[in-house]
């Protein structure tokens, strides 16, 4: 053993492990479900020697806490949002380049690219092993009232966004008044009109029940929103080479499954929202958004990794 966090033990002369994986998302969210799948894969591949306990909903702390716990080696795995991780590693902003991917499938294929690998490798400097990217649905625009056809429709509108610099710049350039606000405040704020709309994925939209209080959903697909699946370097190094391989295979299988699940969920969510009476606009045209898109691409191309990532995926 020697590893206090992983609760290592011995059975029939072979090491057994009970890991912990921590997430900010609630139990029903796609990432949490993927983490549960990871547990199944791990148990199957290791013949029951390894298992991982899932801690959803920030039970083990905020994302800053998770990263710190992984650095020290008291936490084994984490699904960290790309929004948080990009505050600590610039190249990850590549995923937030607007209108880079046609759909979720295309975005998830980019996770196998050389650039994505390099982004994960850069995390090593922080005591983390970057394992993979897990996907939630693409981000769209939900408005209390009003479809989006051109930037004109967004001018002066108060849109709840995530407090990430790329998103902030993108929306500000479009003339939106970006309003960062905790997710828990969104329902009542949208209902009363503190905000006019939100930049959101369908999974979150449905779990927050925002369809109850809004009219128009434009499928803008402006960004992919992955989480970075990371492991504590300390814990990783304490495993045998074979066990390291098992962990890697298990996570890859789980994330592959998770992408399929996310695509399926997006379909189901869309059907549900249609039935719930939401007006869904699915022929959104990006042409009039091109100038702002180019501007953001140019600015973030100062990072070489982001530049190549854009070129290869455009």
């Amino acid at each position, binding site marked *: 053993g020697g590893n206090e*966090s992983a609760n290592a033990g011995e059975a029939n002369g072979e090491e057994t492990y009970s890991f912990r994986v921590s997430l900010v998302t609630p139990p029903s969210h796609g990432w949490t479900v993927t983490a549960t799948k990871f547990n199944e894969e791990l148990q199957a591949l290791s013949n029951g020697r390894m298992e991982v306990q899932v*801690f959803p*909903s*920030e039970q083990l*702390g905020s994302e800053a806490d998770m990263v*710190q716990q992984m650095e020290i080696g*008291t936490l084994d795995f984490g699904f960290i949002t790309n929004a948080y991780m990009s505050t600590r590693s610039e190249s990850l902003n590549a995923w937030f380049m607007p209108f880079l991917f046609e759909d979720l499938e295309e975005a998830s294929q980019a996770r196998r690219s050389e650039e994505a690998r390099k982004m994960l490798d850069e995390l090593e400097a922080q005591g983390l092993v970057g394992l993979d990217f897990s996907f939630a649905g693409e981000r769209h625009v939900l408005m209390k009232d009003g479809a989006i056809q051109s930037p004109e429709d967004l001018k002066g509108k108060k849109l709840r966004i995530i407090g990430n610099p790329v998103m902030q710049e993108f929306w500000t350039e479009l003339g939106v008044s970006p309003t960062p606000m905790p997710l828990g*405040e969104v329902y009542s704020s949208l*209902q009363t009109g503190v905000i006019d709309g939100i930049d959101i994925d369908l999974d979150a939209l449905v779990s927050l029940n925002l369809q109850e209080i809004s009219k128009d959903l434009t499928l803008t697909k402006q960004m992919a929103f992955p989480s970075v699946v990371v492991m504590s370097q300390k814990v990783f190094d304490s495993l045998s080479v074979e066990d390291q391989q098992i962990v890697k295979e298990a996570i890859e299988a789980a994330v592959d499954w998770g992408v399929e699940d996310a695509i399926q969920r997006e379909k189901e969510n869309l059907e549900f929202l249609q039935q719930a009476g939401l007006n869904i606009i699915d022929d959104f045209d990006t042409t009039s958004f091109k100038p702002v898109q180019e501007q953001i691409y140019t600015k973030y191309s100062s990072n070489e990794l982001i530049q190549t990532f854009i070129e290869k995926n455009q």
Partner: protein
Amino acid sequence: MLLALFVFIILLLLRIPIAIVLGITSVSYIVISGSLGLLQTVPQRLYSGLESYGLLAIPLFMLAGELMNSGGITKRLVRFAKVLFGHYRAGLAYVNVVANMFLASIIGSATAQIAMMSKVMVPAMEEEGYKRSFASATTAAAALLGPIIPPSMLFIIYGVQSGTSIGTMFLAGIMPGILLGVSFILVIMYIGYKHQLPRSEKEPLKNVFEASFKIIPALLVPGIIIIGIISGVFTPTESAAIACLLGIIVGFFFYKDLKIKNIPDILVNTAMTTATVTLLIAMANIFGWVLTFEGIPQMLAKAMTGLTDSPLIFLLLTNLLLLLIGTVIDGIAALIIIVPIYLPMIAMYGIDPIHFGIIICINLTIGLLTPPVGAGLFIASSIGQVKIEALTKSIFPFLVASFVVLIIITVWPEIVLWIPNLAR
């Protein structure tokens, strides 16, 4: 585990501040369990437990309370209430409950509401001849309505975690909120006749008119806040800042009771009362985190499912368990730990998640007032300057009433689901 419990009790008896006791207990538990690496994460966990938008309402509503107290608003509100209801036995105690129900439709957090109302009602009731402990207990109990009558931080968090409709949760909170309010009024009636609570002379009509006229600027505060929230000018958290602004305007310009020289004291008082609460939240957060890390809540829940097949017995047992948990961890922290553990279980028993959500939220809200650890109890005790023991004693009848309401809504889910079903 037992050793940590022992440390906890000894430290409490040594009169060490409860916030620090929670911190030391967590640290000793980490040391006992041998996961020494966790020690390094304690300071950051302390920090991030506070990084929450909703908590901002606490200092700002405390400040608003201080400003309204010094600015003469409270005085006139109480005077107004007194000329209307004071001549009934325990009149001011009823006013307290009704005012809290009214305030609950603006505020989403019990701790914030306890803080604000304790500042306002306790001195007023004491002046009328009520015992300080009874005044604090009435206020703290009535302020429990804060997160039950919508809006509610707890309902929002539960809705997000469980994937149920927040709007439906809000509607489902109305009947339990009314039941709780009525049960508190019954308790006051009983105590009022048993202990001959104060009543005053009936006021002449002239005084009634005068007091009603003077109250108009004071009513601007809740008036503007409600209109502001409903029309989307600001969020409930921001409304706390607006309440301060209005408190300043009314205190300085209408009543002219507020003086510049009062301001430093008001600010320092606000800082210290806020910090006693938020430091406790930060420490309780570490405590909950250590328990979760070691899988204690999960273990308890597993033990429960083995006990029964009946959903009703399961829910009643859950109430009992939550009551126990609520004695040491309460409110949002407990909700965050418990909901993910319970969700698969309620699906197994076929329990309506809305019904369950209301039960768990009311239970954890009651936990705010159960000793030895209860944030609401500590706030009421420190603001009302009543010893915890005396407060606990006075609060007991209100707790019993809340439990009765809790059992009623556990056994008859129709009560909870009635209004949501009407809206469908």
